[in-house]
């Protein structure tokens, strides 16, 4: 009404937070489809579990923090974290894996920091890191992709594996599960084999990791859709993908036995997923244009270092957490030049004009 101060802008509302997160979920659909085709029903159950845990934990915490539960649940940010988490754990992982993962992701990494917009670390990656340290064995038992085993575990084996855990399946579990190509490379390296010797195994398929390259392609398609919808800018994904290629290409050209090919690096692990969905997480990522580039290069370098010498098969989660740690510092020292200010650092004590 007149006289009552309407807050700015007096404009029809453009997209709001839940629409932005909704677009991210839509971009993840192709990946879920390919995941289901490659590894069977597991992903749907993991998704249901993860989203269920995430929303319930968030609702409980919002109630405790006296915040309107309806509004914050509808912003879908917890659902996005849950989906990313479900996509990065093995399809047959028992239900307590996503329970613990979501506890760390939603309660500790997000709600303790003040809910959406305030968390310092990427919730999905905190959940994944906590889970990979807590249940190392469960996290290595991936299903053999359809491209290798021509079949995928049917509904009730999946259901039993998830509900009662792998030991309930007894022998069949070892038949249908196998380590990820990256894990295989790591164990091979530890035994001193050269890459070409390891590479003969059919699991490495055409270029890097049979079956997995389709998943990487699905993430690529989803990511391009996001850029098309202008939810994320192209700076971070390009920096991650280009960084990987630039860093691994010389090594591979020099000595294919010692260093892996860039294509294998991208196809095998979840670097493509990280490029489009994890490194571009707005809240825990850097907010300055220069900072975004430093953040992406840092993630790529740390991932490759952990993959080459580290103790974990795919270092993306830890690389992202390590870079999240330094984001407040990066933001502080990469403030962009302000319009009208000279190139060098602004003097702090200038007067108010």
């Amino acid at each position: 009404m007149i006289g009552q101060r309407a807050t700015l802008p007096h404009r029809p509302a453009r997209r709001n937070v839940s629409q932005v997160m909704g677009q991210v979920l839509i971009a993840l659909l192709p990946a879920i489809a390919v995941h289901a085709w490659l590894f069977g029903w597991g992903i749907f159950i993991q998704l249901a579990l993860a989203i269920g845990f995430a929303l319930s934990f968030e609702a409980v915490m919002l109630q405790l923090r006296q915040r309107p539960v309806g509004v914050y649940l509808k912003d879908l940010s917890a659902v996005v974290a849950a989906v990313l988490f479900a996509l990065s754990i093995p399809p047959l992982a028992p239900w307590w894996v996503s329970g613990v993962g979501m506890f760390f992701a939603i309660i500790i990494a997000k709600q303790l920091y003040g809910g959406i917009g305030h968390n310092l670390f990427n919730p999905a990656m905190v959940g994944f890191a906590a889970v990979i340290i807590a249940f190392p064995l469960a996290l290595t038992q991936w299903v053999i992709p359809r491209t290798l085993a021509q079949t995928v575990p049917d509904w009730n084996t999946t259901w039993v594996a998830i509900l009662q855990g792998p030991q309930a399946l007894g022998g069949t579990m070892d038949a249908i599960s196998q380590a990820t190509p990256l894990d295989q490379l790591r164990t091979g390296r530890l035994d001193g084999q050269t890459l070409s010797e390891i590479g003969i195994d059919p699991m490495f398929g055409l270029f890097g990791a049979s079956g997995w390259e389709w998943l990487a392609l699905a993430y690529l398609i989803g990511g391009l859709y996001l850029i098309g919808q202008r939810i994320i800018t192209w700076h971070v994904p390009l920096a991650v993908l280009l960084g990987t290629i630039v860093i691994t290409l010389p090594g591979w050209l020099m000595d294919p036995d010692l260093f892996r090919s860039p294509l294998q690096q991208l196809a095998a692990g979840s670097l493509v997923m990280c490029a489009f969905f994890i490194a571009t997480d707005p809240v825990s990522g850097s907010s300055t244009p220069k900072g975004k580039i430093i953040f992406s290069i840092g993630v790529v370098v740390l991932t490759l270092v952990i993959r080459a010498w580290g103790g974990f098969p795919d270092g993306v989660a830890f690389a992202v957490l390590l870079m999240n740690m330094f984001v407040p510092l990066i933001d502080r020292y990469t403030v962009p030049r302000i319009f009208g200010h000279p190139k060098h650092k602004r003097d702090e004590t200038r007067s108010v004009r």
Partner: protein
Amino acid sequence: MIPSVLILTLLTVSVVALILWVSRRWGANDDSVVEQIDALLPQTQCAQCGYPGCRPYAEAIASGEADINQCPPGGQAGVDALADLLGKESKPLNEEHGSHKPPVVALIDEDRCIGCTLCIQACPVDAILGAQKMMHTVLASECTGCELCIAPCPVDCIDLVPAQRPMIHPKPMSIDIRVQA
């Protein structure tokens, strides 16, 4: 047993000697800290903190003799700024020295002023214009509202008027939507 005691005393003595030599060579200098504290004080020179001006109060804080919450014109924001500068915990303003009032300016009631120049001598910032047996008036732009001129005035013709504050665009309602329990 003997060599160990010997070694230890030798070691301690040499370290102590080194420290004494260094401390004599480079004495401590504290005036830059006083400068920074003084910059935070509101410069009303009103002596409500118990010291004859802002600079002496700053020196007292630097030497630890005075506490950081004795300046009412600075208000709680002033105390927080001092705590932030010195890395200490902020304290509530000490009401003994007076409470924080919105900025005021002195105004002389011209019919009752007898031109005795007592307030002119009392004013720490020479903000009062006038001469013996002449009309006195306060320069509003110079007056800091320190209220030192009120006491000496024999006819009590000085009262305090709220200072002219620039317009501030009102704050929008806060962003966190709290559930009304």
